[in-house]
Each structure stands twice: as structure tokens, then as C-alpha cells.
């Protein structure tokens, strides 16, 4: 159910090497041999377990090599120089030893964003996602590596979602699901991207998959209900909304289930039923502002202003930190993403020895350009 816009051509090592041969040379601020030597040192520092130091060395190397005004050819050349080191490592060890390198560049993305280096941030994202794709493509028989790749892609998908780069994020989520079908964050992220484009029919099967995998996933169920509603599948939508009103464990999810169900009733002219439902919401969720406002408006604009005043008498300003259900829903669903990032780092720690061993087996001098 992949949308054409979201197609991301998986970059395999072969393609990367083809590019290596075909791309024209472009000048960097450092000699190629220096780049490769310093990159190997960065990886050696990483393998010794001092990631923060490795990050600083990487920052120094990349800012020395790539001017702020670098074009795509320079960046590609820089990438190919590092890729040669990685290729040499792969020839001398297992696929798993790439894991720490991917995490290094994954974390470098955030570092560059914080240090206002957008060019290098984008470069880090490209490196990490392409390496994750290479890992996934060659990970037959190694499900852990596929899960790892899925998390890397999901993590960047989430970063892009936060930046409202919907199309790019959807492509990454799509790819993440292709390599790791059970990744719930990628499922929610992809569904949210379809929602953002108004492609509710495309979001429905993705969310059904999430709900089928976990019937207690109320966030996915709410999104499913709303996408069904917008697709015209009213009966099924109401079934989910009613269930969420009763079973939902999170107040904002229950609140939205009440609000949307009442809106539907009101639109259908079932005013008394809408009023009953909203009164139930106000009683069940007294701190929620929106059902009160919705009920007050329903009463007020139907000639019952005094009752509206009585309903609003219970309206209290929101406590600090409490956001509205619609705001929370409108945020990209980042649930589980931080957890996934923590898993990436844990997997990195477990594979540092492999990386160290692979580095030790490299010839003393780097490979030329």
C-alpha cells in the first residue's frame, strides 16, 4: 500500500560504488588520505567506548574537510572517501560492526543541528540512512540487524516529521516498515503522513495493522477511527469511538473520541444524542475544556444560553503543561521513537568490540582516493 510519492530507491552498496567510479572529482579542504586516516581514528576512538570524544573528532574532521559552502559534488566525494574505509572494514569482519558507525552518524545529525551546521546535518542523515539501507539489504538471516535498520530509518523519519518534511519522512517510514514490519512507530508515522495529505483510505489499512498487532493501542485506534470517519466508514468509526470513550486509558484520547462522535451526531441532526454524549464527557472528564466548550456552543446557539453559562461555569484554565487533545493529536506521533533511539545506542555498545577487531585488521595505511 505504498504511495508513489513515498517511494525511496534503496541504496545498495553496489550503487554507491558505481557512483564512486562515475562521480567527478571535487576539491575538499583536506587531502583524501588525511580524510581517511582521520576517519579511521574517529572509528577507533568510537570502538574504545568513548562516543562523545569520537563525536568531537568527527566534528573536527568534517568541519575541516567540508567548507560551509560545499556543493553536492564535494559532499559526495567526502562520503565516498569514508565509504571506502567502511567497505574495507566490511571485508574484514561481520556486518554487525557497521552498527556503531551508523549510530555515530545518526547522533552526529543531532549534534550538527544543535551546532547550526545544516549542511553537515543533512550529510550525516544521508550517511546514516544509506548505511542502514545497506545493512538491511545484506542482513538476510540476521533479524536483529534488520530491526536496527528499521529503527534508524524510523528515527530519521520522525526527525523529518518534526520539521514538517512529510514526504521525506513517509519515504523513510515506508522503507523502515519494509525492513522491519513490526515497527509500531513507523506504522503510526506513515499513517500520520497519509492523514496529513488527506489520504485517509491509505492510512486505514496501516492503522488496522497496528490495531490488529495490539488491540490496546488506543492511539492507533483513535487514528483509525478518525480515518474511517473521514473515509465515510461511519459505522466502523463509531464502533471504535464508542469503545475508546469507555476503554481509553488516556484522557486526551477519550476526550477526542467524545468530541468527534458528538460532532458526527450534531452534523446528522441528532442534537439530543450529541448533548447527552457531551454531558457524559463533561462528567467523565471534568478537567477537559473542549467538551464543555462544545456543549456550551451546542446549547447556546440553539436558544439555551443559560444552560450554556452553567456548563461554562465549570471551565477552568489548563494546568501548566496540559495540552489540548487536538494539539496532541496534531503532533507527529513520536511514541516509542526515543525508546527506539535508546535501543540503537544499546546495540552499538554491544558491537564496539567487533568494530575494534575489524579496525585492527585493516592495513596500516588508508586507501587512496
Amino acid at each position: 500500500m505504498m504511495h508513489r510519492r513515498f517511494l525511496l530507491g534503496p541504496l545498495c552498496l553496489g550503487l554507491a560504488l558505481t557512483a564512486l567510479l562515475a562521480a567527478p572529482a571535487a576539491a575538499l579542504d583536506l587531502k583524501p588520505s588525511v580524510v581517511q586516516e582521520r576517519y579511521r581514528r574517529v572509528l577507533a576512538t568510537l570502538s574504545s567506548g568513548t562516543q562523545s570524544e569520537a563525536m568531537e573528532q568527527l566534528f573536527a574532521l568534517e568541519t575541516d574537510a567540508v567548507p560551509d559552502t560545499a556543493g553536492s559534488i564535494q559532499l559526495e566525494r567526502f562520503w565516498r572517501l569514508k565509504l571506502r574505509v567502511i567497505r574495507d572494514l566490511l571485508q574484514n569482519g561481520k556486518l554487525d560492526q557497521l552498527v556503531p558507525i551508523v549510530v555515530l552518524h545518526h547522533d552526529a545529525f543531532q549534534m550538527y543541528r544543535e551546532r547550526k551546521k545544516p549542511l553537515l546535518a543533512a550529510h550525516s542523515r544521508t550517511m546514516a540512512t544509506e548505511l542502514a539501507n545497506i545493512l538491511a539489504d545484506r542482513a538476510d538471516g540476521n533479524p536483529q540487524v534488520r530491526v536496527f535498520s528499521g529503527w534508524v530509518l524510523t528515527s530519521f523519519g520522525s526527525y523529518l516529521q518534526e520539521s514538517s518534511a512529510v514526504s521525506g519522512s513517509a519515504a523513510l517510514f515506508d522503507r523502515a516498515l519494509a525492513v522491519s514490519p513490526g515497527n509500531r512507530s513507523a506504522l503510526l508515522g506513515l499513517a500520520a503522513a497519509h492523514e496529513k495529505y488527506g489520504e485517509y483510505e491509505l492510512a486505514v489499512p496501516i492503522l488496522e495493522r497496528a490495531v490488529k498487532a495490539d488491540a490496546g493501542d488506543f492511539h492507533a485506534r483513535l487514528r483509525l477511527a478518525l480515518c474511517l470517519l473521514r473515509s465515510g466508514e461511519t459505522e466502523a468509526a463509531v464502533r471504535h469511538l464508542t469503545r475508546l470513550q469507555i476503554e481509553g486509558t488516556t484522557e486526551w484520547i477519550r476526550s477526542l473520541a467524545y468530541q468527534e462522535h458528538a460532532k458526527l451526531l450534531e452534523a446528522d441532526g441528532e442534537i439530543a444524542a450529541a448533548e447527552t454524549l457531551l454531558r457524559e464527557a463533561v462528567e467523565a472528564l471534568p478537567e477537559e475544556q473542549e467538551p464543555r466548550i462544545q456543549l456550551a456552543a451546542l446549547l447556546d446557539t440553539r436558544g439555551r444560553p443559560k444552560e450554556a453559562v452553567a456548563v461554562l461555569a465549570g471551565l477552568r484554565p489548563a494546568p501548566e503543561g496540559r495540552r489540548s487533545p487536538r494539539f496532541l493529536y496534531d503532533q507527529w506521533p513520536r511514541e516509542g521513537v526515543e525508546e527506539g533511539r535508546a535501543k540503537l545506542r544499546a546495540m552499538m555498545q554491544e558491537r564496539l568490540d567487533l568494530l575494534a577487531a575489524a579496525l585492527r585488521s585493516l592495513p596500516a595505511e588508508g586507501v587512496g582516493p
Partner: protein
Amino acid sequence: MRRLLPLLAAVSLLGATDPPFGVWIDRPLNGAAAFGPTEIVLAVESSESTAVEVFVDGRSVGTLYKPPYRLKVDLGYENLAHEIRAEARSRSGRTASAVVTTAPIQIDEEIELPLQQLYVTVSSGGRSVQGLTRGDFRVFDSGDLQEIVTFEGGDAPLTAVLLLDCSLSMAGARLQAALRGADLFLEHMAPLDEAAVLLFSDRLLLQTPFTTQPAQLSPSLREVEPVGGTALNDHLFLALKRLDARQGRRVVVAFTDGSDVHSVLRMWDVMRKAQISQAMVYWIYLQDSGDGQPRYTTAWRDVPTNRQEYELLHRLIEETGGRIRPVAALDDLDDAFIEILSELRDQYVLGYYPTSDRDDGSWHEVRVRVSGGGAVRTREGYLDY
């Protein structure tokens, strides 16, 4: 007729042969609610020169020596009963008195007045036209000429709700500028004006009571941190609803840097509210990030729906007789707040009882004509409930 009203106490100390002597309080009515600036209207029957001293809650507020026996007082906006007493004494020493007691209203009680009030701005060549009289105006309700029963110039007190966007995009200089503008608005209000402030983001963050003491409002406003998204529709509805229970000239002055994103109410719902309300809506819009036309999509609305909401907001504002005041830069905000207050001051307030009061939810189109020409801006109509 007046003397038949049992609540208007009249006391005459004279014998049957003496000429009649007495005092009555025609307004406010006994048992009715009275707030804010209130005119006390007395009737005195006496064949000789008579002085009437008026007391509110036991305090003397003035003495009248000749007709018309009318006195303006400020009863304040606390929801209290007030005792109004008039004591008349003639030159020959005859005395009489009358008392009425106004009643507080229940907090959820609406004051239902069939009187329709129009706030009318008249301008010519971009300048406000002042000095017009009742006779200069003609009011048409659903095409029918109406009798103007109340008429006031710009000194009529106003009640305002300042509705300020406190979403995350307002953080820093924007919010500071908005609060400074709101402060200026409050400081420049006339003594009998009152205001409340409502800060919102995707939720209601703070609302103050109505007060005529603006200094009481400022400190609490500065405790709110900008956060979250924007739910303009919901909070515009709340602001209009809060004005329901106020009397006289009512206005919402909203300031945002963006359109609605996170409301449960559609602008259509708010529009219905505005159409049964008598309040005006002014919108100060910070346009430093574009022309204000929404070009975004959210999980709740696509771009065309967002645009439709935006257009409805424009229509709502026009229908209420308010206007949109775009602000190009933060430095212009102060001027915008003051300009709106000045404009409100220059308005004429016309009141009439619609000849076709139907209470059926139908739309009454309102037109105001002014003799001698000039551009007239007022609400375009109302829903008759």
C-alpha cells in the same frame, strides 16, 4: 399610572386639603438588576420648589433642585443588590421619600433585552464624523424603518474582552508587545469602561474577571508562558459568551499571529454565536509572516478548509461591525490597540425595539443611513432568538 405601581413607595404627609406632594423613583425598577453607569429617574409632584437628595446604599450621591430629576451614578459591577432612596423636601418643609431595591442576578442568568443596540462608526474621507444627532440617523431592520429609542455619542461606557494569543509562536518579543498593547488599551479606558483579559493557546490559559481597575489585570498576565498551538475559534466563542451577561457596548479585541488550528468549534459555530450576540469583534493580526491566508494542512483540516475558516472569520468580523487591523511590525501594535479604542470612543450607540421581533432564529438584515452622507460601519444583522 406611575402612582398605581405598588413598588413605587410614595409618602405624603399632607392633609386632604393640601396640594399633592410626593416623590417616586421611576428608574431603576424595584427588583430589577442594575450595574455600572445607571441613570436614576425621579418623578416629583409638588406645587412649590423642592429639593430631592438621592442616596445609594445609604450614601448621598447628589441633590436635585429642579426638573428634570435625573441623576447618573455608577453602581459598579459587583453582583449586588442596591438600595436607592430619594428624600424630597419642599421650601415649606413638607417631606416625602421613596425607595427601590435593585436585585443581584444569578450567575447563570441572562439579561434578555429585546432592545437592539447598534454601534455605528461614521467616517468621511477617512476621518471620524462627530456631532451627529439622533435625527441624522435612520435605521432599517429587515427593510423596515425603526424608531431610534436610545441614542448616545462616543462617551457611552464599553465592556471589552481582550483575547490574546499565547501560543508558542508568540514567545518572546511578540507576546511582550501584545501585553504592552493590552496594557495601553486598559490604561486608556474611561473610568466607567470595564475589561477582562483572556489568554489562550490551544487551551484556555487564563481569564480575569471584568474590572474597571486595569492595574489589577497586568501582573497576572505576565505569569503565563507561551505554549502550544492556537484555538482561536473556541476562545472567540468564550469571549463572546462572557459578554452576554454584560450590558451596553460590548467588544472583543483579539490579537493573534495566526489563524485557528486546534479548535473543537468550527468558525461557523462561532459565527452563529456572533449573530445572536450584540458584541463587535476586532482582530489585530500580526502579518509579519505573510498575508494571513492559511496555506497549511493539519491533521484536522486541509488547506481549502483552513482557508474557508479564515474567510468566515473575516465575514464574522464584518457582520459584527468590527474590523481587521493588520499590523506589519511589532512596533505598530501599540498604535493598533489605541486606534481601536479611539474608534470605539467615536461610535454612536443607537437602540431600537425591532418592529418585527420574531424569536424564530431568522436573520434580520440591518442597514443604517446617515444624513449628509459619510461611510457608515455597523453590524450587518443578527439572528433573532
